[in-house]
Structure formats: structure tokens, C-alpha cells
């Protein structure tokens, strides 16, 4: 399936689930370098589960996952931690640590993975919070923020280390249209200016049309379509057309 074994993300025939319930059924997808790949599909179809398998928060039942060209299933922990160094993750609900301020949240990956002095870390944390429009909220705690602000703070944490690979789970859900379009611009800039590879789970048709280079359309744990949006229009897949019409 994949022409290039060194794409940042290649998943092949992933099958996964919880207990005895299969949630992903032979899912294959990939993401090209410096591009935005969007994973779409109705809620409950397994997008988050796919994402968590890709970063090994869940172990697939079978199949292969290559990140930066290396097979990660069965890789030992120290080696995989090295891979995580190059990955940022924005979780569906932000998943900020609630016991510390958002600036400290953003500082965690910097402290964990770099030898930078404190002063610089705190400066960097502020810069990242500024990128998402939260420069004035850095000392606040997650519980003091609205859902949309929390999500943006979580994005700031995800990009703290300028990871070459960024996973986002529904970044614009819960945001107002203006903030959401600002976020889309930010994601585009990260692709263009920082050369990141982005894999984004999304529901929002407008943002898919704005920023997706390629899409992966899922339904009930299966991938029904992979390709560009233009190809999607002429693919004649009923469920996908319905998704775009109603999204």
C-alpha cells in the first residue's frame, strides 16, 4: 500500500478494541510529511481509538504501526519514549493537568525533554500560549478557563517542543467560529512555517475544507476512503457525501 516506508505515520491493517468489542477493523492509513491529514467520521466510529493506538496509549490486537519509519508495536519503552519526543498530542478534552497552572502545563514537555534553564522554559511556555491567544491567562488554572480556552492551552502544550508530528483530536469542537478559523490558520502555519506533519481528527466540515491536504473517512471502525477532498467528491461514497452535506 505505501510507496514510501519513511512516511511519518503508516498504519497497516490495524484491528483493535476494548475487551471483546472490536472498534477498529483492519484500518490502514498514512500521513505524508509536511501535510495535514484529517480523520473524519461520525462520532463513535473509532477515530479517538485510532489516534490512541497510533501513540501506543492502547495496544492494537493486530496490525502494524510505523512512526518516523520505525515499527512501534512491541518497541521497548525507552526507545518509544525517544519517539514520543517528536510527537505532540492534543487530546479531545484537552487533558491538562488540573493541579498546575496552564503555563506550568506547557512547561512539562520542555522540562521533561530538554536541558533548558528555567528562565527560558517559562519564556517559551509564554510564547506558545501567546500563539493560541492565551498570553494573559498563563498563570490561571485549567479549572478557571472555558472549554475552548482549555483546548487552546492544551494545543500550546502539544506544540511546546515544536514536534515534527502533531496529533489533534477534534481541535475545533467547542470553539466559536471565529476562534475556530483562527485555530485553522495556526495549524496551517505550523505545517508551512514549522514543517510539521499533522494528523487531525475533525468533525467540522468548514475546517476540513480549509486545511485538509488529505482525508481519511471512517465509518463503524472501517476506513471507507482515503485521498484528497477533490477525489472524495467524485468517489461516490454515500455515507461520506452525507457527512459533507450535513456536517
Amino acid at each position, binding site marked *: 500500500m505505501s510507496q514510501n516506508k519513511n512516511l511519518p505515520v503508516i498504519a497497516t491493517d490495524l484491528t483493535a478494541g476494548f475487551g471483546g468489542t472490536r472498534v477498529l477493523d483492519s484500518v490502514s492509513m498514512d500521513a505524508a510529511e509536511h501535510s495535514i491529514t484529517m480523520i473524519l467520521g461520525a462520532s463513535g466510529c473509532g477515530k479517538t481509538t485510532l489516534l*490512541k493506538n497510533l*501513540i501506543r*496509549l492502547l495496544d492494537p490486537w493486530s496490525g502494524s504501526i510505523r512512526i518516523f519509519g520505525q515499527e512501534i508495536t512491541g518497541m521497548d519503552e525507552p526507545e518509544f*519514549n525517544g519517539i*514520543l*519526543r517528536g*510527537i505532540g*498530542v492534543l*487530546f*479531545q*478534552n484537552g*487533558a*491538562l*493537568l*488540573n*493541579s*498546575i497552572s496552564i503555563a506550568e502545563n506547557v512547561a*512539562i*514537555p520542555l*522540562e*521533561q*525533554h530538554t536541558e533548558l534553564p528555567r528562565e527560558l522554559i517559562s519564556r517559551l511556555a509564554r510564547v506558545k500560549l501567546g500563539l493560541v491567544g492565551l498570553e494573559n491567562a498563563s498563570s490561571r488554572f485549567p479549572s478557571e478557563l472555558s472549554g475552548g480556552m482549555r483546548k487552546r492551552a*492544551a494545543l500550546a*502544550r502539544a506544540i511546546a517542543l515544536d514536534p515534527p508530528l502533531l496529533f489533534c483530536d477534534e481541535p475545533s469542537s467547542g470553539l466559536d467560529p471565529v476562534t475556530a478559523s483562527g485555530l485553522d490558520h495556526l495549524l496551517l502555519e505550523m505545517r508551512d512555517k514549522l514543517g510539521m506533519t499533522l494528523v487531525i481528527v475533525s468533525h467540522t466540515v468548514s475546517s476540513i475544507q480549509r486545511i485538509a491536504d488529505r482525508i481519511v473517512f471512517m465509518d463503524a471502525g472501517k476506513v471507507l476512503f482515503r485521498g484528497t477532498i477533490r477525489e472524495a467528491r467524485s468517489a461516490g461514497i454515500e455515507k461520506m457525501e452525507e457527512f459533507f452535506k450535513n456536517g
Partner: protein
Amino acid sequence: MRPEASVSRRQNRLVFRGQIVIATVPFLLSETEVIEPVRGGALTLDLAGVDHVDTAGVAFLDALRSRIEKNGLECRIENAGERNARTLEVFSSRKFDSQAPVRPPGRENIFEKLGGRAMRIFGNLHQFFLLLADTFYYAIIGLFNRRGMRKGDFINQSILIGMNSLPIVGLISFLIGFILALQSAAQLRQFGAAIFVADLIAIAMTREMGPLITAIVLAGRSGSAITAEIATMMVTEETDALRSMALNPVRYVVVPKVYAITMTMPMLTILSMLIGIFGAMVIGLVYLDIGMEPFYREVVNALILKDILTGFIKSVVFAWLIVMIGAYYGFQVRTGAEEVGRATTASVVASIFWVILADSLLGLAFYLGQPVFV
């Protein structure tokens, strides 16, 4: 006005009248339990006289049709009228016919239940020991390398566990020492052995009550807090986020608590011992006319190092039980805020139980270790 319904049989037709709604379905069910044999291979449900069908009615009619069809007959609905026909279509449950029925919970037989429970206990023990191994591993690593632990957490946790529990531990210890002394004084006085209250309380507080009181208070205060914190982190995906940043949740969250409780618990225990003995001293003073000075001398004479050591060892064991059980129950939570509360309660009950069990076992071990008791 109560809804009414009836059903009657006319050759190959079941004729319904009135309302097929949630209130009448039980009656209709019993009426249609037995279906007389049919000639001609088809049975029609006639809804001409029905003025209203609700979703329960639709489900009833669907189930009836499936049952009839299973007997090899054709079954159709006729004369439903426009509105009822639409209801039947929109709320149809026929597509679920091919699926296995949803199994009502709590209907396992006794063997399934016991078997499931046994499996769960073994699975849980396995996980508990994995967590324990992880914690010890990172606790030892953490002594040399602070990276990967929550900053400042050791101090915070020590204060949280130690300072906040101090007043309540102190108060309970005082009262227990006081009451124990009062009860035993009444007895011992009859034999003119009142001074031995001091010995009794000194030994009881150091070996048993001090560690136990502290452990039970901390299980309720800190154990539950640990479970609630970790459980909430599981629900809000904070633990996932930690792992995605190459941080180990056990190392980040649990290890600082292990350090903190290992430090503070023995200190609290010693305080509890002292305050309990002080409570007894008050009784000696006001009730038995034993002065502070002789009481103190009696206590010092009664205690040997082993008593204090026993209490100390117990307190450390209890401390670890409380953190580990608290953490274990926290990590068990997968989804849902309501699980957090349940896990917290379960964790407190479990840690108090295990503390008392461990207390008995340790007590036994110490006695067997040295059979002569002075």
C-alpha cells in the same frame, strides 16, 4: 381517563381496538400469549379500530409479528391508518430482530458469578503487584533522579498528609488514651493496682493504638484523596496526556506520595502514641491521684525499645498499604465521573480492612518472634 384496549380473533385476523400504548401493552401481551392455530398460512393484525399507538405499542406489535413469523406464518398489519402507519415505520424495532437481545444485568447464575469473581480477584491481584513493582522501581530511581516527578509535590504532599491530619489524629488519640485509661482504671483500682494503668496504656498506645488510629485516619483522609485524584486524572485523560509526554503516571503522581507518606506517617504515629499516653496521664492525675512524675516514670519503665520499634514498623507498613491501595483503586477507573466516587469509597473500605488485617498479622509475627512477654 385510562387507556383501554382489546384484541379479538376473527378467523385469520387479530383485531385490535382502543389504544396500543405502554399502559395497555401488558394486558395485550397476556391476551396474545397463546395464538390459536391458523388455517391458510397467514395471520393479519387489523388495526382499524385503533386510535393511538405509542413506541411501546410499536415494539409490542413488532415482537408479536416476529413471533408469528417464527411459527412459519406470514404476518401483516392492515388498516393502520395514515398516522399509526407512520408511527409504526418511524419507531420500528424490526431491524433488531436479528440481533441477540440485550441481556439484562445481574442475571448470572451462581457459578458464573463465583467464577467471574474469582477471575477478577486474580486479575486484580496481578495488576496490584504490577503497580507495586512499578512504584518501588520508580521510588528507588527517584532517589537519584528527580526528573519525571511532579515538582514540589513531595513537600506539598507531606504538608497535606501530615499537617492536615495532625489535629484529628491528635484529638482521637487523646480521647482513646483517656477512655482506655478510664475503663481499665476502674478495674485495676479494685486490686490496688492503679499505677499499672500507665503500663497498660503505654504498651497499648505504642504497639497497637497509635499506629492503628493514625492509619485509619489517614486511610480516610489521604487514601481517599489519592484515589479521587488519580481516578479523576484517568477520567480526564490526564494520565494519557502524561504518557504521551513520555512521563510515567506512577512516577509522576504516586512516587511523591510514597515518599511523603513514608516520612509523615511514622511521625504522626509517634505523636499519636505520645498524645494517647498523655490522655491516660490526665486520668491518672484527676481520677487515680497519680502524679505526673510517677506516671511518667512508670511509662518509661514499662516501655522497651521493641514496643516503639513495633509501632514504627507497623506505621510504615500501613503507610504503604494506604498509598498503594489508594493508587490501585484510582487507576482502576476507566470512564465516567460516577466511577470516581465509587472507587473512592471502595478504596477507603479496602485500605481500612487491609490495615487491620496487616495489624493482626504483624502483631502475631512479633509475638511469635519473641514468645516471652514482659
